[in-house]
């Protein structure tokens, strides 16, 4: 079987929007990123942004999905959720931002209370919604299943589209942060030069002064070869197997920054006899949701849904290595967008380790494995977004069975970075205050190597402790290889 079409093949200079069927093969165009673009045009709607992020302009095929008005009933009307809230404050107690930021009123206000306020009158969204980091911990805290993060995403989308100045530094900065893939796509073409430039003090200084991107953090280095380039050089899948097929959603970070995670995914899945597909794909939308850039997220979602649904049609399940990517495809997509096949995609998406634990005898494969006792001690942090998928303990349970390996949970706190949140100058101190508990627990743990599924949690763990941080799939690939 031929390798799937690779967007790297057809990278062209930025060009105007192309019809969606071709858009998949193009890089994001600069016009997609015009920070002063008219909001209504962005959204493709003229009245309200809280239509679930549907747009009329960028449609794939208008017959395939319908715009949903959240305020007049339908699947995205969240008023029922407001009424399910009995004000137990579990969400506020679970909120890492409210814990350190006294000005943040917490998820109970952002969610059910804001929705009640908006019930009848034309009430503005409170600007504090922009301080929510979208960690989504409130979702699993709520005993009444109030759709808190969905409420937050809707409110934030409306606030950004209707109330935030498109000329403000905050808007431009947030747009840049949430479109990491766009800049990474350009920067990774000349990784050494980019790494040199982003490593310069002056670059970080300018980022802080001009954009409000903290100079405290080092920009992540680009790999000299992206995952997709490696995949293409390799000639694609090494195994063909129509009965066991997975489509890998590598996301932006394992493509541009940590291709070793993607390569580990391929090694592990091929060792279990899977044929790995690598469909064309864009950003999962996670950083865009967190910054209220719902239209951007939707544009990327069109590609992802179409391509991944096609892979599902070929018998594949979709595997992500980043738990925020998998959460986005599984939860935020169906909550915020109405596209053909979106529920199928949610139902077929898994995180990598999760999938193997369900479908393979991982315990058996690891029973023969042995770890190097000196090297293999890990301080594991469960990302908030893994927590919401019920995956907070999977790495611990898996690796504890490996003879000689030590893995300790560094607690249930949030790492504090929440994707783009900790990159914002005005949030940096809060981000580090949230992370303090995790840093302490990492220092107290035996292992001096970190482990987590989330690339930005990994950044924070490294930033706070100086530890090297690895992905469970990397460790799994190595461990399985010791057994064979």
């Amino acid at each position, binding site marked *: 079987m031929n390798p799937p079409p690779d967007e790297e093949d057809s990278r062209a200079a930025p060009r105007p929007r192309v019809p969606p069927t071709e858009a998949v093969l193009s890089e994001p165009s600069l016009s997609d990123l015009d920070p002063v673009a008219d909001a209504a045009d962005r959204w493709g709607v003229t009245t309200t942004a809280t239509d679930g992020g549907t747009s009329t302009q960028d449609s794939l095929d208008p017959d395939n999905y319908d715009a949903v008005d959240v305020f007049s009933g339908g699947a995205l009307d969240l008023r029922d959720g407001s009424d399910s809230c009995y004000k137990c404050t*579990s969400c506020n*107690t679970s909120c890492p931002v409210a814990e350190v930021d006294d000005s943040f009123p917490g998820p109970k206000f952002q969610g059910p209370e804001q929705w009640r306020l908006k019930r009848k009158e034309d009430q503005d969204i409170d600007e504090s919604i922009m301080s929510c980091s979208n960690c989504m911990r409130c979702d699993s805290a709520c*005993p*009444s299943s109030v759709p808190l993060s969905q409420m937050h995403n809707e409110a934030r989308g409306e606030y950004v589209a209707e109330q935030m100045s498109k000329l403000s530094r905050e808007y431009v900065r947030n747009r840049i942060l949430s479109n990491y893939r766009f800049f990474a796509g350009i920067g990774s073409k000349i990784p050494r030069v980019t790494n040199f430039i982003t490593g310069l003090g002056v670059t970080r200084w300018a980022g802080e002064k001009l954009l409000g991107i903290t100079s405290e953090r080092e920009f992540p280095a680009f790999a000299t070869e992206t995952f997709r380039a490696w995949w293409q050089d390799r000639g694609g899948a090494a195994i063909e197997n129509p009965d066991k097929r997975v489509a890998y959603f590598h996301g932006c970070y394992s493509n541009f920054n940590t291709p070793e995670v993607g390569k580990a995914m391929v090694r592990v899945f091929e060792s279990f006899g899977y044929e790995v597909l690598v469909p064309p794909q864009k950003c999962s939308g996670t950083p865009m949701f967190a910054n209220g850039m719902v239209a951007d997220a939707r544009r990327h979602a069109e590609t992802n849904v179409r391509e991944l649904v096609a892979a599902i049609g070929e018998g594949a399940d979709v595997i992500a290595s980043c738990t925020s990517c998998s959460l986005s495809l599984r939860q935020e997509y169906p909550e915020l967008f109405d596209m053909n096949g979106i529920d199928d995609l949610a139902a077929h998406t898994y995180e990598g380790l999760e999938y193997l634990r369900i479908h393979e005898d991982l315990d058996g494969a690891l029973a023969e494995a042995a770890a190097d006792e000196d090297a293999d001690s890990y301080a594991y942090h469960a990302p908030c977004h893994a*927590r919401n998928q*019920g995956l907070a303990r999977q790495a611990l349970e898996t690796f504890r069975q490996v003879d000689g390996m030590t893995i300790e949970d560094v607690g249930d706190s949030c790492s504090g970075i929440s994707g783009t949140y900790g990159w914002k100058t005005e949030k940096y101190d809060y981000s580090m205050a949230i992370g303090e508990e995790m840093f302490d627990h990492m220092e107290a743990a035996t292992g001096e190597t970190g482990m987590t599924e989330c690339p930005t949690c990994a950044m924070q763990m490294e930033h706070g402790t100086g530890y090297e941080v690895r992905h469970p799939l990397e460790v799994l690939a190595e461990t399985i290889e010791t057994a064979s």
Partner: protein
Amino acid sequence: MAITSDVLVIGGGLAGVTAAVSAAREGADVRLISHKHSTMQQASGLIDALGYLPPTGDDAELTPTAGRTGAMDQRATPEGPLPEPFAAVDRLPEGHPYRLVGAEALRSGLALFDEMVDSYHGAHTDRNALVPTFGGSVKPTARYPASVAGGLASDGAPMLVVGFRSLAAFDARQVAGQLRETGVPFSVAGRELTLPAGLADDMTPTRVAHALDRDERLDGTPARAALAALIEPHLDAVKGGAARVGLPACLGDERVEAVCEELSDRLGARVFEIPMGPPSLPGLRLSDRLYESLDEAGVRYETGNPVVGVETDADGRVDAVLVDRKGTEIPYGADGIVLATGGLVGKGLDSDREGVREPVLGCHVPHPAERYEWYVDDVFGDQPYARFGVATDERLRPLDAAGGVQFPNVHVAGATLGGADVAREKSASGVSLATGVVAGRQAAKVAATGVVG
């Protein structure tokens, strides 16, 4: 099916954790799944066993609908506070969970709790302790956090109650007044103070707790010293000077005992906590501690996804439950199942105008077909709905409408069980512990022997 265990516990509250640890101690390989954080985090953190004996419905005047028939005025008040919980078990109505599993199960449950949670007091005696609540009443309870121990109402030491003006749910003057009204054997006064400078006026109890836990500097002064300095001038508000000082339960998280000790040293008076409603620090601490003991017992657990379906064989035996992982239903197989999903508050029971259901496995929940028979007008009266829940046999297996065992390898524990009015009896935690221990053992036995009949 890759996800299997000997025993699967559904529900992550006190009953579920107890059942899981109990099954693991019997040698079973145990997995616990919980949809959301447990309502245990909102509870007071007190472990009540049995504090009151409500009048039963033997008297026609006291039938469930007595409120509407005018009998309300004659309603007998519950007997209590009971000096100790065990002797009264046999006087509870038939079908009460304690009647099914017996007083010995309650002892076993409390003993297991004592092993899991070493920071609690009360294990030295069978007798109930009397703990002041933030409503100013005195609650009979079997186990209580060490930080609460200084406040026992059986102690004669003069008490100062301190509240914070911004914490509207707790009014120290009202607490003190109510305690006096109750006739406590000590002098008591209440003072409402402003939080130390450096803490915002509308600070949440969790934020105050963490400031004290870490002894953060507030306007240059460490939080514990700042709080002690604030209270010190008011010690004489009580006749003879306060020998103990009660504060709302926000005196720390992981290090609450150190905080209480330091405050006590600085004030020369025992500082203790009065349990609060949510956000409840004692509830959060208890939950943390119990999950640590799950881990210590080798129980695998996960939170975040609901059980949405069940696979049974021809005999009604549950082979697997289906967990909805964001749109995909994944079977979790087990030999023995414990259902501990909570009651009406914890969403282990669901109701609408048509009826009352157990939504996870679909266990039968006996209740009157006529909705007007579900409640009485007297809010604090003998509410029939308070006793709604799954009926079981003595091994805690759920019974169907005809009285037969509905799922032979399922054992029900905690608030999902019917027959107890735990709010009036002050028995919620004890019911969870007693039935959790039994359900866990039974499930482990099913897994070990393969025999369900």
